[in-house]
């Protein structure tokens, strides 16, 4: 019984490992920040799915198409800027707005200096994060000054 049990568990384990390896092959993307991405050699970029994190939307740069569906916008990591075009189907999350922190998946086109995002996730600003109090205060101050 003991050997049978071992054989049984080995089969289960092998099946699971096979599934995991196949799964990783099919749906992996490389996670980078903006400064790393622009330095990558072309061979590592072409056709590779990239997950880009650590950037925020530059305020005022979101240009929507006529139905407010697929925007073009600028992102920044504080020092660098880059243009992003959204090409996905899903309606962008409600949290996508100026200064939103983004995690995007898509492809980088170095020759056009542009990132084509198929998936855009805007960090749940909640609640948990993003509502930095100082930012909020300064934003309010600007609002009052411009009288809007």
């Amino acid at each position, binding site marked *: 019984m003991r050997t049978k049990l071992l054989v049984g568990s080995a089969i289960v384990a092998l099946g699971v490992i096979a599934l995991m390896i196949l799964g990783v092959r099919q749906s992996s993307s490389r996670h980078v920040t903006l400064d790393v991405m622009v330095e990558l050699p072309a061979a590592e970029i072409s056709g590779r799915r990239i997950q880009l994190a650590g950037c925020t939307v530059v305020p005022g740069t979101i240009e929507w198409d006529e139905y407010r*569906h697929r925007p073009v916008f600028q992102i920044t990591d504080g020092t660098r800027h880059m243009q992003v075009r959204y090409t996905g*189907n899903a309606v962008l*999350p409600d*949290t996508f707005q100026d200064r939103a922190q983004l995690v995007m998946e898509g492809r980088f086109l170095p020759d056009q200096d542009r990132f084509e995002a198929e998936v855009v996730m805007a960090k749940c600003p909640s*609640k948990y994060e993003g509502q930095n109090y100082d930012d909020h205060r300064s934003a309010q101050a600007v609002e009052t000054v411009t009288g809007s």
Partner: protein
Amino acid sequence: MVDIGYFALCLALAAGGYSVFASLLGVHRHHEGLIRSGENAALAVCALFTVSALGLWYAIFTKDFQVQYVAENTSLAMPAHYVLASLWGGQNGSILFWGWVLSLFTGATVLLNRHRYRSLMPYAVAVLAGSCFFFAVLNVFAADPFVRLSFTPQDGSGLNPILQHPYMAIHPPLLYAGMIGMTVPYAFGIAALAARQLDNTWLRAMRRWLLIPWTFLGAGLLLGGKWAYVELGWGGYWGWDPVENASLMPWLAATALLHSVMIQERKGMLKVWNMVLLFFTFGMTIFGTFLTRSGIVSSVHAFAQSSVGDYFVVYLILIVLGSSLLLLRRLPDLKAENHLESFASRESAFLLNNWILLALLFAVLWGTLFPVFSEAFTGEKITVGAPFFNQVSIPMGLVLLFLTGAGPLFAWRRTSREGFRRNFGVPALWAAISLMAVAAAGVRDIYALMSLSLCGFVGGSVVLEFWRGIAARRRTTDESALVACYTLLAKSRRRYGGYLVHVAMVLLFVGFTGNAFSTDREVVLHRGQSATIGDYTITFETLAVGDDDTKAVSAAALALEHEGRFLATLVPERHFYKRAEQNTTEVSIYSRWFEDFYLIFVGSADDDGSAKFQIYINPLVGCVWWGSVLFVLSSLWTMWPSARDRRMARLDRESSPAESWDTPLSGATS
């Protein structure tokens, strides 16, 4: 009130420390007074945390914006019932909330077991009070929710609009209660090891306390899915985000434990395995919390990176080291009384169920941590997305589904060839019928065919079990079938309640399978124009815009027809919250028995008044919600004390064995 809250927190810290000390010293010296004192200190921790939480709530309700936490998480314009949720809306408050709920669980454990499990209680109290102590430390030193600003702002920044939703007010507390509640079974496990009381007594205590957080966690997960579905507007309910995974993993571990515990109770096997599984379940709750608060994996909704993560690492290391050392010392006491005799036995089916659940857990863990591993080993941070999780979890889910139905059909020890035929005949027939029905309906997706046919199999197996139980009762009594069914459910809550949970799982799987057939379309319509999607036709009738103090609303009205028959006028909306400068989509969902018509208003063009819509047709999604409801109800039914349990508890109280203290080995007292 704010100062009182902070002061109560400091006192809770002291009382928690004292409770651990008194309980352990008391049990060491066989001193009953000290043990009681430790329990009372644990109750004091509960009271003090309550005062502290009320203090923060008071500050939130009175909009005391000088308190930084209040300023960051509420605003004047927020409706009162969402203000309530601000307590757990931010990092520091959520840790206070965590400590508070933990102290409530601790208090309940102490009060309910004044006369029960006496030799286990001192250790259990020490573990629980120790955990409360940890959260008090965290609150006082790393995440103080009562910090004041040097000035008093006019208004706070408020809670994000999309979180201002009823589901979002209930979902986090449910998840928290589930995660936190796992501490109680863990405490009983440690206590059983420490007191060397490793018979079935602690197992019963542990199992009941495990069912409660397991139900909470499951309900929290499902409710989170429902919220995502109606509020986020991407047509789905589960995205395999690290934060979602962090709460799924302990649930999977606990599910495995709930099943394998039965083998230990009945056959005295798997003792070490169950203990490890229990520690692992608890460890996963802490690890998951660490994952979401340390920022080591990027998630859509992780908390801010903060020093809280470091505290959790220390806590986790202490738990792992302490638990494993204790377990190693007690290994000789955990010898199995029986061995597996045959593959075709209920034991084997449960064991396989455990393996698959854990394999699924590890696959989810692997996918979640893949970026961390790949960066450590190759220097490249690689992430895996939803397709990975789906590809891995679907086959394993199907095996689990099969076992859900097959487990109860196997006999203990060994299933005879005859018994096999007798038990598997009906469910196999059900499986065949559902397979043919589904195939006849035009389904060709291999996973969907397998899943739905297995759902038929499990359904057949549950019906067979009920049928046999009812028939057996009716042979000895003159009950009607309905009464007999009720008596079964009321008398053997664990068994038949458990089967109802299995039915809930079947419904959930039917709902999940629906994803294989969902379609999505994008259409642009001018006013009066129609579009046809599948059997449905929508006609864009009109567009209205409005405006109030807090938000601007644009709403589109569309007539929905199905095969030429008018169903409803759908009104999807877009809201623009002026203060947060944020857009939200209010989707419009028309639910029919078999599918949902899910309509999103993407936006309208200013010049010609045309509008763009996105449409998802989600077949079978309703089964997920019905399955969720049944899951919660049947879990509650299962854990509710039966008449026999209540009688036992009364006997315990009356015989009051609290005096039999002298030695910690003086027998469990139930």
